[in-house]
């Protein structure tokens, strides 16, 4: 109980810093991959600081309230996760949070932001099966949906769940809005969608969105770590290493692939989910 609350507090306080730092690394590494010097590692924090200092603007008055709800629900998702609560509930709350992001984008009735929002919905549809199946995998491997129980398993769960790991890392590309699946927000410059579902978010609203993304990324990285972590305390080091590797992999994919259409994204994601997680699931059900 006490440990759980400590973790939650640590998450709430540290997650934005870790998330921002990871994003800074991301930008630096991307730049180096393109043979550029790149921005300082702390650049994301400078950006958010600037956004918070600018004039507050909006297209629709309700956008800010929807975005704040998105932020708080995402924090709740991570808090539940780091408290050691039910993993499936975490993802349910996460999908509710994502719904609020969708609302924040469509509430403006702006063409670019609505088009981005529609694609965001398709992204949600693409990744949700893999996310739920990951929970199923953990349940089979560890016998419980509880994050605390899963983290306390004797052997690292990835031993049972390699297929689920592949599927989860695959959809992580969607969740982290990385190319080739960044169909909804298009973070690379000058694309047909302007800024996708963030088009109408400026200054403070964008800062809220950005911070939420950090919270979300830390939560997702936590799930990646959950594959590795076990009752041995040193497994935390292994988990951190794997998290950094996965993060690097995402950056690499981001920089080496062109964007896909949503049709391709949906097909490929579902196919990978079915194949990797599905086969793993069938084997696991027979074994355990």
């Amino acid at each position, binding site marked *: 109980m006490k440990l759980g609350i400590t973790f939650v507090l640590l998450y709430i306080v540290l997650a934005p810093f870790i998330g921002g730092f990871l994003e800074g690394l991301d930008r630096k590494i991307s730049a180096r991959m393109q043979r550029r010097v790149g921005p300082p590692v702390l650049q994301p924090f400078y950006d958010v600081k600037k956004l918070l200092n600018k*004039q*507050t*603007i*909006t*297209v*629709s*008055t*309700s956008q*800010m*309230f*929807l975005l*704040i*709800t998105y932020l*708080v*629900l995402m924090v*709740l998702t991570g808090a*539940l996760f780091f408290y050691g*609560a*039910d993993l*499936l*509930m975490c993802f*349910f709350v996460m*999908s*509710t949070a994502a*719904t609020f992001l*969708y*609302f924040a984008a*469509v*509430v*403006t*009735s*702006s*063409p*670019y*932001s*609505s088009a981005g*929002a*529609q694609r965001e*919905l*398709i992204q*949600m*549809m693409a990744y*949700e*099966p893999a996310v*739920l*199946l990951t929970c*199923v995998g953990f*349940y*089979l491997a560890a016998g419980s*949906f*509880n994050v605390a129980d899963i983290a306390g398993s004797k052997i690292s769960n990835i031993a049972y769940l390699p297929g689920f790991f592949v599927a989860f890392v695959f959809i992580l590309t969607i969740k982290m809005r990385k190319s080739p699946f960044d169909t909804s927000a298009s973070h690379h410059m000058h694309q047909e969608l*302007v800024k996708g579902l963030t088009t*109408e978010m*400026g200054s403070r609203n964008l800062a809220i969105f950005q911070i939420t993304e950090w919270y979300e990324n830390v939560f997702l990285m936590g799930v990646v770590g959950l594959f590795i972590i076990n009752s041995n305390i040193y497994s935390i080091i292994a988990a951190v290493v794997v998290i950094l590797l996965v993060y690097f992999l995402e950056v690499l994919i981001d920089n080496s692939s062109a964007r896909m259409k949503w049709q391709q994204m949906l097909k490929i994601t*579902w196919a990978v989910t*079915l194949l990797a997680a*599905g086969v793993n*699931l*069938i084997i696991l*059900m027979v074994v355990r």
Partner: protein
Amino acid sequence: MPIVPFLIVFPLIVSVLMFVIRVNKVRNFFAYISAVIIMVSAGALTVQWGMQGFKPMLLTYNAEVVDHVILAAEIILMILVTVLSFKYKKYWVSLLSILPTALIAYFELLGPALPEGGQIYVDHLSILMCLIVGVIGGLIVVYAVGYMHGYHHHHTEFEDRRYYFFALLFAFLSAMFGFVLSENLLWIDFFWEMTSICSFLLIGYTKTPEAINNCFRALWMNLLGGCALAVGIVYYGYNAGVVSLHGLVEMAQNGDKLAVIPVALIAFAALTKAAQLPFSTWLIGAMVAPTPSSALLHSATMVKAGIYVLFRLAPAMTGTTTGMMIALIGGFTFLVTSIMAIAQSDGKKVLAFSTISNLGLMVACAGVGTEETIWAGVFLMMFHAISKSLLFQDVGATENALHSRDIEDMHGLLYILPRLAIFMFIGIAGMFLAPFGMLISKWAALKASIDERNIILVFFICFGSATTSFYWTKWMGKIISASHLREKTFKDITKKNEVISLTIHAIMMIALCVSFPWISRVYVTPLIAEMFGAGENVLPDAILYTLIVVIVLVFAVPFFAYLYSKHAKVNMKLSYMNGINTGDNRKFVDAMGEEKTLWLSNYYMHKVIGSRKLMVPSQIFTVAVLLIMLSMIIGGVLV
């Protein structure tokens, strides 16, 4: 308990009354009064039963007379169907009515003498069904009074037969009460036929060629189920010498081979009533009927009859081939129809598809047949009944005001018809958003299907819930988007009684969401215990606390966020349209320098996943599954 026969007979009397009174005002008055009486007596039944300790009770009445009355009524229904099918030249449909009725009549008159037994069974499940039928049915009647007035005002091309409409509504309520309270399978069969025929007549209310076509489709599909039911009952009656539902379930639980075929046949019948694939088309066709009947029959109550039967049979199906068949069909229906729902833009069609889809999940829960799945299924049923009834009524009211029920036309509904939009929002939220019950039910269903090692169902649930949230979120987004430029202004012409019904539904929805951990402990856990003997608490404490946190936050956060953002100083900007926004976010300058109106639309992907593409293949698949598994079941027993 005299209140039980009262619940069944009273609506029937009112039904006759409705048919006789031809003065609208007087009839409306009586309809209100009777609806209230029905709601109150459903509550009174609950209270009376609760005073006696919430124990399951078997009630016996002087059966001889009643049995004959029921047989006579069944024959009358048969004659009605035969006459109508000859009138509309669908001769073969009459066979589906004549055969089972003849079979039942033969069995009852010339079959083995049946021992005297109880005919009415009152327990947690039947009381829950009574409450759903009574309260939601009653509210729908209240709503219907206002709605039908507006309906005939707009649709002058249809003959005003409201006396007939209300007579059918009440007759249907009577049948429903009879159905969920009966223990005697012969009674169940009669009430089953009665609900089928009420639905048939209501779908054909407008008498347009489309309505006639659809109502006969509904009729033959439901009667086919009725045939299976009759055969199952007679088979069981001949072999076991009794016709009690609980006897059948007990027999199956003891592993008696005799029970296998009746259980399979009755479960098959339930599939038709619950509009599972391949029988889903009747429910979609039923949407031609006026909205109250769609709400009452095709989402909130009648289709629940199928679910009710499956829940009753659930302990008998645990781990059997029948259970597997039911779970497979249910899970498949859940996924496929939710995909089809994505491609629909007609609000009522989306509701129809999502009804089938959600019923599929409940059917799958029943098929797996463990404590957890039934727990999940019962909650799904409660949430579904309230929110679907709310949504149907709301779409109906919106259609009256907007002259369209296309979701695309509901863009910015929050600003055009705020009251209806809020109700719609609550209803949709109840269908899929955390912390409303759908999610927690999905949680339990998923957990149980993993525990049962039902891989296919796990996949269906995972993929199905992704597609389900897609179409709901899409719809919700439409409602809250800033409104388009419209040429007309719209007026909220919702009648007061419609608003009353909608408000009560919305309150019930939120109350159910907030109090559902409590309901689980107080009501649903005993229900499970009754069904399976020893019942444990399905909802672990850890989940319960998590849920409470989520419930509090999901309600509190938007509220405080709203208060905060209301006082935040913001500068309004035009939305980004490459600098050619004409100044009100609704128009832009086109290449010729003229103003064009902006019109946003959702993704429907109907070319890829439309019901035209998916319906036939999935019907073929499910027919094959049903044929193979039924022959496996029946062959397994007979050989």
